[in-house]
């Protein structure tokens, strides 16, 4: 996959893998984002203890985006690694709160 076209920037800090979305989690991006995450997390990795989804560059999260984040959380849970969302803008944070997803996503109050 061409790095510049990768939907996520991946960085590591110890056992924490940070996936920074390059764009909004919207219908037109979600298939590629899902494929990328699925490939990246396909196998459990003993060195990976946590996954952080960084949404600081995601202006919008739509319905498919919500579902993608839930799937990512499920995958992390299956693999026994921690999961949290960081960097969400106020509107996206509000969206998660409205639907009571903040606990599931480990969202911290500002």
């Amino acid at each position: 996959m061409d790095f510049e076209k990768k939907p996520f920037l991946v960085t590591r800090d110890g056992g924490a893998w940070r996936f920074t979305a390059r764009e909004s989690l919207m219908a037109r991006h979600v298939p590629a984002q899902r494929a990328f995450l699925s490939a990246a997390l396909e196998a459990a990795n003993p060195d990976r203890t946590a996954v952080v989804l960084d949404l600081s560059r995601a202006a919008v999260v739509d319905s498919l985006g919500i579902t993608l984040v839930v799937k990512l959380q499920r995958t992390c849970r299956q693999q026994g690694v921690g999961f949290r969302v960081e960097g969400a803008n106020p509107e996206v944070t509000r969206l998660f709160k409205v639907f009571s997803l903040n606990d599931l996503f480990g969202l911290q109050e500002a």
Partner: protein
Amino acid sequence: MAMLADGNLIPGFVAACRVHLDAIEPDLRVLEAGGAAGAEVINRVFRAVHSIKGSAGFFAFEALRRFSRQLEGVLMRVRDGALAVTSPLMDAIRAGVGHLRAMLDDLEAGDRVHADAELAILRAFQDEGPGAPVVARVGGSRARRFNLASDAVRSALRRGLHLYHARAYLHADVDARWQSPLAFLAGVLAVGECLDAFIDTSAIGDLTSDGDACIIMLFASVLEPELLPGALKLPMAQIEVLNLEGPRGALRDVIPPPPDTFAREPRQP
């Protein structure tokens, strides 16, 4: 696919709240004047604060919801005859309404501002809290429960509203028929009161699987059951009237005294 982070709904929410507060100014003055106020006067004030509380909860303005809920609790006691309208009480209500305005003026900051002093004054007028929680379990033991004050259910019942349990699938319903989930919720608020709502994620698997998450609502509306599918743009099969006369799960049986639990059968998406 419509965008979901629908920030332009917030100004409308704030404007609607201000309309509510402006509308009750004459009623507050009547109450402050100390004359005999009819039940409808206090009812109007109550309904305004109740509406603000419901909308604030929907839009996740937690401090605003919490404060308006406390004010609503005091107004409820006045409406029910448990509290007399006195000058100290009206001072507290007036201060409460003023604080609501201040929170609306600076909503983002207001959601973080503590109102301990104002809340303490309001609590002084309440011998008891806002009622034991009504807990309704949906989707089996793994699903999140509705959790709301029983007074909210009582209030809806007293006002003759129908209670509904409704499901809206994110992709099949919300994306297909509404601009976004928040637009869907705004549409819901236009025809009734959402007592609680959450997304049931139990049908969602990992990254390799498919599945459609579902918004689940406990909803009160004056609309008759046959009108609700059109208003909410949902199939009738996804809307269930909570029959208060039913032998199982009748809400009158789950409002305190305890146990205050409303258990429902697991539902298949």
